[in-house]
């Protein structure tokens, strides 16, 4: 058996940061980017703030071998702050993942890519938001803030399987601080391909 080629991994944060918890997908990828250095002698990690771009992300997504989408989801019998990690092609029936309340295009976007047979292996790191109101603020609910530890653990475990190890770069990173600056923060681990 030959050696596996280099795997290019994309961590894509989705959501509208103007609407509190709904921007968690974006805030979380900034949090990871700020906190960790990603190490691999073989594979690459690219972190992209997808915001509400949805279909406009297609050219970006199809370039990668592995995609992890971080976004808000809904699920039966769930409560705010619950975290789910699943294969997009094997989405559990109790999960109602239609992106966020304001932009429902992400699911359609992935469907479109899949129909063209261009979809890379795609996993979704989903979080149940608390507030999805029309007030514009970068503040997050406590439930979401407390869920960060679970989200972090899930994604790091998966990255480990992909031969990506991490080193803490900035120990003092908190999701509360990051959520205030995500809109103007430059991503360190930007697109590698």
């Amino acid at each position, binding site marked *: 058996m030959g050696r596996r080629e280099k795997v290019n991994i994309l961590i894509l944060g989705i959501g509208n940061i*103007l609407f509190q918890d709904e921007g968690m997908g974006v805030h979380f990828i900034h949090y990871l980017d700020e906190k960790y250095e990603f190490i691999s002698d073989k594979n690459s990690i690219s972190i992209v703030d997808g915001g509400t771009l949805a279909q*406009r992300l297609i050219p970006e997504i199809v370039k990668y071998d592995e995609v992890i989408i971080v976004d808000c989801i809904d699920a039966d019998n769930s409560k705010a702050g619950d975290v789910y990690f699943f294969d997009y092609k094997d989405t559990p029936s109790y999960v109602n993942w239609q992106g966020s309340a304001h932009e429902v295009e992400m699911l359609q976007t992935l469907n479109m890519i899949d129909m063209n047979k261009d979809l890379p292996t795609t996993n979704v790191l989903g979080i149940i938001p608390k507030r999805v109101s*029309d007030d514009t*603020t*970068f503040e997050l609910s406590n439930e979401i803030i407390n869920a960060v530890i679970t989200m972090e653990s899930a994604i790091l475990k998966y990255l480990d399987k992909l031969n990506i190890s991490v080193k803490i770069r900035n120990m003092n990173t908190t999701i509360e601080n990051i959520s205030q600056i995500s*809109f*103007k*923060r430059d991503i360190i681990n930007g697109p590698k391909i």
Partner: protein
Amino acid sequence: MVLKFKFTYKSSDKTLSKFLDFASKQFDCEYKIYQELDFVCLYIKANEEILEKFSESLSVYIPMSIYYYDVQIEVIDEIPSLDFICLNQDKTISFCPTCLKEVENTQSKNFYNAFKSCNICDGFEEASFLFEDKKVESNIEVFKKIALLINEDKKIKIKTLSGIFVFSKIKTLDESSSLLLTNIRKISQIIVENKIDIVALVSIEKPQINFKINEIYRQKNSVKKTNIDIRYPNDLTLYLLALQLEQYDISFLNIEEENSDFDYFLDVNYKNDIFLDIPIIKCFDNKKLILKSNSYPKNLDNVYEKFNEKNKSQFMTVLAENQLFDSSILNFYISTKDDDGMSYYSEKIDGLVDIVESFYIPSSIKEIFEEIQKTDGGKKLVENYRSKFEKEYKKAINTDISMYKSSSFYCYWGIAKIILDFKNGILENANNCFLEKGPRIDYKLFDSKKLFHKKFDYISLIKSSISFKLAGVDEETISLGFIESLAHFIGRKTDTINESYEVKAVSLCGDMFTNDLFTSLVEKSITKNFKIYYNKEFMIQK
């Protein structure tokens, strides 16, 4: 042995070729000059010793040019059988390095002869000065006298190759519109040095360039303005005067128009009909854009006249200058004065189509808030804005926006400034912002099945900016978001059009592209798959 010098020279003028011709004639060699599109090639055949000397001394004969970028040299077998180009041109060339050397040589009969010219460069013919109603030959005494008068705070009107101007010592920069730099070594006394700008300033074209005034000078001299237009002596009269001003430690002169007050007039009696253009340019690391010029090939005026809409006229000049009529090009015309335009040209569709329709410009702020309230979440947004920014909301509602008529992003930015009650304009704010990234402001086209003639959703643009203000983002950061997000929109549009229609390259024109920040963001947003074209000799916005 044959050497091929391949110069990247983004002009169709024959200036470089004329200098190469002159330089080659000084050596015992066989040579040929060929010019096409962005390149001038000199093929030179001689023995190794001569070629070495030629290569070493080339810089003495060839002046810098705003159109010159680099040169590649290679050894080839034979001079190709190409037609030698015709070196004739109407364009006036200011003093050449050889003439300059002669007028500065105390032993030469042309020492301080301001009317020296040669086969390459141009000047007043059979000329003499007229000073205080007397005919005066050009000599060092004339220039000593004029320099002395300037030092004594006299205003001197001088006939130059580019017209008549009044020159004097600088009083305060706030009263000056443009300056003549008379001592290049002292340029940093007033402005922030930038190598590319300085090289362009003293190039053979001697353009006028806008420079940032340095903070030390501003503070010391209580100068309010931040920028000033500067040019370098572009004829020998001004150059020789500059030499004499050095002894009075005068490094800059104030320039005023012909009809300004003056104390003395240095006029010129001459025979020929001559005018030397002063192009106004903007330098970037990788290109120079022409803001104003009369030195471009005049056939471009005919190309420009073919359309009534300025964005399309300008696009045609980019296609013509870069010989792209057999290609597929997407054009973005973004302007601070005219209507914006985005159009796609392809030989395959036999012409040109608009990507976006003319923008709708609302007639009042009230209308905008009413429209926002009709959208999803819009009612709550306006309510929140009215309660959190009551004063700003009232002020905006009562502000007349009838002066905003152009169908342009710049116009929307002007309206957004009023709604958000920003102290400064969006562009100014963004330029002052030290952040690398701004918030994502929505630039969207309404969904429709067609790819062309889409409508721009200006309500989303305004809504997103209000949201960021409500979230507590400051005005400079939001302004950066306005600029950066437009750049990203241009990049995304390019990709989208390319998915359905072939886009081989992108052309950018309109005066917004003279803004460093905006242009660098747009260039970064357009993926590397697309080459970017600009006007070369023609103005970026006529």
